């Protein structure tokens, strides 16, 4: 097996893992989006390198050119880039709204506020203060 010769795939795999790790590990919503973008971009690299042939040119019909790279994956990635940008834009817009509504974009603070809301509605549903305290402890 030619491990070094496949270096393009190694780069892709490493970038995917970095992106994925950031999405999972970071608390900050914007950092999560950064991770997501790295993750998506790594996949774009993968498609582009699949279509590339060493020493080949763009697919232009000309007698002097013999070997062409496959343009299809490149076109596909143009579409995927558009999708990726719209996802990031929508994500960032949501983060702005979350900041306005919660006053924070740290995940644990959002969870804390949500849990508080949840406890309040439990209190309202089941009444007594005693039960509320029990629920709070668990």
């Amino acid at each position, binding site marked *: 097996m030619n491990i070094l010769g496949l270096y393009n795939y190694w780069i892709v795999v490493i970038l995917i893992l970095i992106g*994925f790790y950031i*999405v999972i590990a970071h608390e900050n*919503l914007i950092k*999560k989006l950064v991770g*997501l973008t790295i*993750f*998506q971009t790594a*996949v774009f690299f*993968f*498609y582009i390198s*699949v279509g590339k042939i060493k020493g080949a040119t763009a697919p232009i019909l000309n007698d002097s050119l013999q070997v062409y790279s496959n343009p*299809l*994956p490149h076109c*596909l990635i143009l*579409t*995927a880039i558009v*999708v990726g940008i*719209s*996802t990031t834009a*929508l*994500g960032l817009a*949501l*983060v702005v*709204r*979350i900041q306005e*509504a*919660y006053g924070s974009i740290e995940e644990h603070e*959002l969870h804390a506020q*949500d849990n508080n*809301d*949840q406890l309040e*509605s*439990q209190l*309202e*549903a*089941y009444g007594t203060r005693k039960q509320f305290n029990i629920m709070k402890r668990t």
Partner: protein
Amino acid sequence: MTAHYPVLQVIVPLLAAPFCLVLRIPRLVAIFAILVSATAFLISTALLQQVLSHGIVIYELGGWAAPWGIEYRIDQLNGYLLVLISGISTVVLIAAQSSIGRELPENRHTFFYTAYLLCLTGLLGILVTGDAFNLFVFLEIASLSSYILIALGTDRRALTASYQYLIMGTIGATFIIIGVGLMYMMTGTLNMHDLSQRLPEIYKSRTVLCAFGFFIVGVCLKLALFPLHLWLPNAYAYAPSIATAFLAATSTKVAVYVLIRFIFSIFGINFVITSLPLSEIFLVLALAGIFAASISAIYQLNIKRLFAYSSIAQIGYMILGLAIGTQLGLTATLLHLFNHALMKGALFLAIGAVVYRINSSQLHHYAGLGKKMPWTMSAIVVGGLSLIGVPLTVGFVSKWYLVTALLDKGWWPVAVLVLLSSLLAVVYVWRIVEWIYFTPPRIILTDIQEAPLSQLIPIWLLVLANLYFGVDTRLTVGVSKLAAQSLFGVTL
């Protein structure tokens, strides 16, 4: 004109969506959206008829022949689902005007309908397309617009729910393109029909196995299979009621369709069973999902969240049908796909009607509403009975076929578990009934009236469909059987 039906199906709502922004006046936009959706419904009915009488309909986009151009391909399976999705969408839209009018500020109505029609475009596109990459594009159209639909909810938790769904959904979609990319790398084609013919030669390749793995995990994220379901409960709970009714009835169903399409038509069931223990994985995850989600449903305070968990459990039943891996099992899955869309459509619309009146989806606010809103509440009860699987409802039909398929395969312990899990459904449906009919009201109910007719009609349309298809199963069972047969008999 008839020749162009497959593409019109997608283009009509796609072009109508930006047109909504031009129209601007909420009332006009609402009527316009209903018309568009009804057009899609009529086209899809015509298409299904065409498929049933003449066989597969193939449409070449822009006149480019299949392996190079994008091909739309409609057979019994997606013809049947097209009718379902566009039908449900139309019924839900009829209720939309009043419900959205109450739940959203007026300046957001137009955006709601635009996102709704785009979502419909995406879902119909996923169903008709015969091209693997095109499927990804439509999937993202549907997903992006559903993030918007969810974020439109008035509770601030709708925003975090939408964000969470965006992260999970994008990871799922990216996994899907990794899978498609690997398939393309090995076969040099993106056309589903071509893929199904070229893949068998290279079944031994590890890359193909890898492609399949990525694809399946990606789709399972989208359809909220048990350990990947975390985005779903909050998304359904805090979205506007109409959006919840639409998404719950359609979007996960379409993801199940994608799964079926790739497992049966493209990779072929033999490859799936022999090369991977997929059947066992699905069996375990489906059962775990059914139980975990049904038990969580019992403890929910928010009725939308309760039914969201129940949706996850119902998806478990569909995946269970796939895990059986026989024609009967697939028939059960397809039937449940249809039936569950009817149940959840009716239930979430009925909840939407209650939210319209009391502006809350907390279960304890429903106390005593049984007398105030008898029609809406009885719709919730019938929908609940259908979820349990009581005879004369559609839920019974799909459970019957599922259990028959399980017994036929010889998996009787699983059949027993399925029946036991129905008891959990009894518990959570009973909790609702208890709050509605047997608990004194917690809030002042004097000026609460029955829901307006514009909401009762769509609700009862779906409830009656629940009962009708529970008795007269010729259409649903007939088409499901045909579709299952064609998926098992000949590859696409």
